[in-house]
């Protein structure tokens, strides 16, 4: 039977784009064929999960969608009448419960029973439903529209790895067809992104990920087999992984955006020259942006708001430092329950706190600290190397290098 993993190879695009032609023609003439859009989405989701071990994942996805459907519906219905904090926290907790179970089962604690709940895309779908519950709490979303909910939750182009959209934004695009002139621009953008994505994903990411990165890993492992605790080869491992990760993920995001645009949905962009950032906070404004903005708005800012409003801690710098750790640690845990994701989160939180301290120091000593082209270039180089170091932790190779020799 035909099985199609999203954006896995060039033929996938032939099938998908062919299926989207009627939708595109409709959009060009100012009509959005909602039923057809849903059918295409469902068909391509079905084709991800229709074979072998994927079938369990497909069933988990259906169960997950039903769970979130009733949860969000229930919370929106409740919120119309009342607005108790504990109900909100309970609803948010129940919404992230599936991913918590999947993460715990992933560590091997309950593997045989619970890995059942996992499926491709669960990490990303969680943001969609929790985001809706938070938007409802804040009065941004008022009504439950079952069809729109399902179109949002099961929006196929971004199902497996983002970019992460927000319901209130998505619903605005999805309710209408774009203006014709805008839609023509979107098709042009989509074409550009598609071809850049091919270069990133099928050429550069392949080269770095399949050839260079494994080569340096092997070299490092031969040092490990000689009992060494560190190896010079870890340096090129880190750089090649950093390059691979960027081109793979940015390429994937370009595909997802291109397909979204063809469907007349302007999903948010995900990467904006991250390796040119001058500091670590700027890096997170340019790297996996839809994720870091989600965390910024739904974790960091809410946390800071709660603390400042209730005056639990007076010192603003202390509050923001704690919030960085909460934010980045949550982000690390979201990737999975392993020591290297946790350390990765801690490293980034530390980087942000140090960056803030440096900015305060610089402001105080404005006249003594130079600021010019060279210091900026130095800042870019420094930030890049810090990030590469955190990616060496993130990639998990150190786990193999040290503990699975």
């Amino acid at each position, binding site marked *: 039977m035909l099985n199609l993993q999203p954006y896995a190879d060039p033929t996938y695009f032939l099938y998908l784009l062919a299926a989207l032609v009627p939708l595109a023609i409709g959009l060009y003439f100012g009509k959005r064929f909602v039923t057809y859009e849903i059918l295409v989405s469902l068909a391509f989701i079905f084709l991800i999960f229709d074979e072998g071990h994927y079938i369990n994942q497909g069933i988990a996805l259906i169960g997950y969608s039903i769970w979130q459907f009733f949860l969000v519906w229930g919370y929106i219905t409740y919120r119309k009448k009342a607005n108790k904090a504990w109900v909100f926290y309970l609803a948010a907790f129940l919404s992230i419960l599936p991913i918590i179970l999947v993460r715990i089962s992933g560590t091997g604690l309950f593997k045989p029973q619970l890995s059942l709940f996992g499926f491709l895309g669960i990490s990303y779908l969680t943001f969609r439903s929790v985001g809706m519950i*938070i*938007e409802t*709490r*804040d*009065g*941004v979303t008022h009504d439950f529209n079952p069809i729109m909910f399902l179109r949002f939750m099961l929006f196929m182009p971004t199902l497996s790895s983002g970019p992460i959209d*927000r319901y*209130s934004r998505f619903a605005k695009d999805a309710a209408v067809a774009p203006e014709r002139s805008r839609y023509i621009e979107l098709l042009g953008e989509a074409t550009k992104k598609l071809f850049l994505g091919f270069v990133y994903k099928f050429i550069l990411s392949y080269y770095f990920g399949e050839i260079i990165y494994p080569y340096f890993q092997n070299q490092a492992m031969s040092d490990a087999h000689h009992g060494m605790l560190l190896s010079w080869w870890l340096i090129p491992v880190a750089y090649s992984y950093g390059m691979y990760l960027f081109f793979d993920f940015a390429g994937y995001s370009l595909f997802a955006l291109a397909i979204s645009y063809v469907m007349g949905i302007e999903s948010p962009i995900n990467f904006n020259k991250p390796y040119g950032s001058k500091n670590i*906070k700027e890096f997170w404004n340019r790297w996996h942006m839809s994720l870091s903005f989600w965390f*910024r*708005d*739904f974790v*960091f*800012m*809410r946390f*800071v*708001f709660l603390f*400042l*409003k209730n005056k639990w801690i007076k010192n*603003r710098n202390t*509050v*923001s430092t704690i*919030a960085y750790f909460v934010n980045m640690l949550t982000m690390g845990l979201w990737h999975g329950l392993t020591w290297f994701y946790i350390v990765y989160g801690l490293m980034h939180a530390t980087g942000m706190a140090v960056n803030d301290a440096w900015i305060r120091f610089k402001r105080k000593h404005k006249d003594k600290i130079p600021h010019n082209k060279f210091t900026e270039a130095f800042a870019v180089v420094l930030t890049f190397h810090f990030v590469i170091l955190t990616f060496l932790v993130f990639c998990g190779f150190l786990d193999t290098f040290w503990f699975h020799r």
Partner: protein
Amino acid sequence: MDVKAGVLEVLNNIIGEDMADQMDENLFDSGLLDSMATVELLLELEGRFGIQAPVSEFNREDWDTANKIIAKVESLMG
């Protein structure tokens, strides 16, 4: 109360800069406002004008200049 003067005073308290002659300067691009300062701004505006601005769906594009903040505050005051 004069909304414009009030907003400018709040902004001045938080970012340490008088925006009166740069009402259309982008506060986020110029690095004057970050997430932390934004929350402080919302809390100050809430205290002073009695408005509720949802922190989660705070859309930066609607709040990125002094002029836009004033317009937002006025519309939230109804």
